[in-house]
């Protein structure tokens, strides 16, 4: 059964996801960060979709379970496109768009295939297990890709504050979810995941809304000051 906290976190997530789209529109940067806006809109629609499936079939139903995990995998793939959008922002001026597109598609297909073959080798396990493992792997590849992007930004001395904050917020989100899914794989019996995943889902819309509203496009920052291992 769901308690008031679950409902509160659910509605809050949907509200913040829609809010992030509104903030991007209000800051007049929706076009520039179009893929990020589309991701947030998709996240809002799927959060609403999950609620509708929950109302019709209940929280413990197979329908809800399947819808939750498959919509999560779909959202992660959308987030890949959002990440690619950020790659294009960083490398766009270097004329590497086509190579980036091909590399991203190959990586995505490769991750899905590897996850499928891992699960296919142990057929006695449930199909939902595949989705949890797929999500864990997708999020982890997301962590690696975001880390590579951040490394490239440090190397290229990227100074656009808005872009820096969008990438770092995405890095926090990917890392938190990858870690959470990995621990969930290790301890599937822990019930706390339900709250943790909701709380983590709040992070990205809040951080992106903040960046869209508070950081002007022309704001600049020395990236070298931000490296976590660097002392001031």
């Amino acid at each position, binding site marked *: 059964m769901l308690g008031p906290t679950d409902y509160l976190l659910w509605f809050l997530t949907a509200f913040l996801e829609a809010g992030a789209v509104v903030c991007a529109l209000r800051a007049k940067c929706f076009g520039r960060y179009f893929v990020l806006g589309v991701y947030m809109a998709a996240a809002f629609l799927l959060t609403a979709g999950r609620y509708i499936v929950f109302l019709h079939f209940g929280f413990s139903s197979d329908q809800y379970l399947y819808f939750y995990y498959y919509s999560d995998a779909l959202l992660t793939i959308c987030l890949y496109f959002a990440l690619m959008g950020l790659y294009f922002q960083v490398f766009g001026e270097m004329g590497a768009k086509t190579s980036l597109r091909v590399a991203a598609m190959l990586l995505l297909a490769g991750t899905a295939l590897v996850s499928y073959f891992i699960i296919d080798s142990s057929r006695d396990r449930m199909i939902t297990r595949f989705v949890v493992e797929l999500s*864990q792997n997708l999020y982890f590849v997301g962590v690696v890709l975001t880390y590579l992007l951040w490394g490239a930004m440090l190397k290229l001395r990227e100074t656009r504050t808005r872009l820096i904050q969008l990438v770092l917020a995405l*890095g926090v989100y990917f890392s938190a979810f990858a870690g959470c899914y990995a621990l969930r794989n290790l301890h599937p019996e822990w019930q706390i995941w339900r709250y943790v995943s909701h709380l983590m889902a709040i992070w990205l819309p809040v951080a992106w809304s903040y960046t869209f509203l508070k950081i002007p496009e022309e704001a600049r920052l020395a990236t070298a*000051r931000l490296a976590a291992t660097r002392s001031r």
Partner: protein
Amino acid sequence: MIAALIFVISIATLLQFFVSYCRSVIAGYTKQELSLQGREITGIENRIVRAEEFQRLLQLLGLCPEPGTDASDIRAVRAYFKLLSLARKAVGRLAPAVADWAERERRTCAYFAAVALDRRIAYSRELMTQQISNV
């Protein structure tokens, strides 16, 4: 085994990204020098502020009218400061280098609070000037 490895790597990257994110929020403030009036009120002589001053500066911030632009920054930095204090206490004896790093970060947070206070004081003065000119 793979899940355990992913977990460890993810936590390490999470910390790196989070620290860099917080630094990017703070960086907008630390570029700024404190005004003369800000220095007089806070009692801060130069750019080095003791980490212990952070709470006092936050209390002073609470006394100033909010311009409505810095509340989320202050909340984020307060959370970062708490995390750093926790890290310093937790691993301070085992890893003195981490404790030193956390202390430097805490000092930067304190400087952030001083600049935020300075900005609020400037905002209050502006409000007062406007009120006087309206009378």
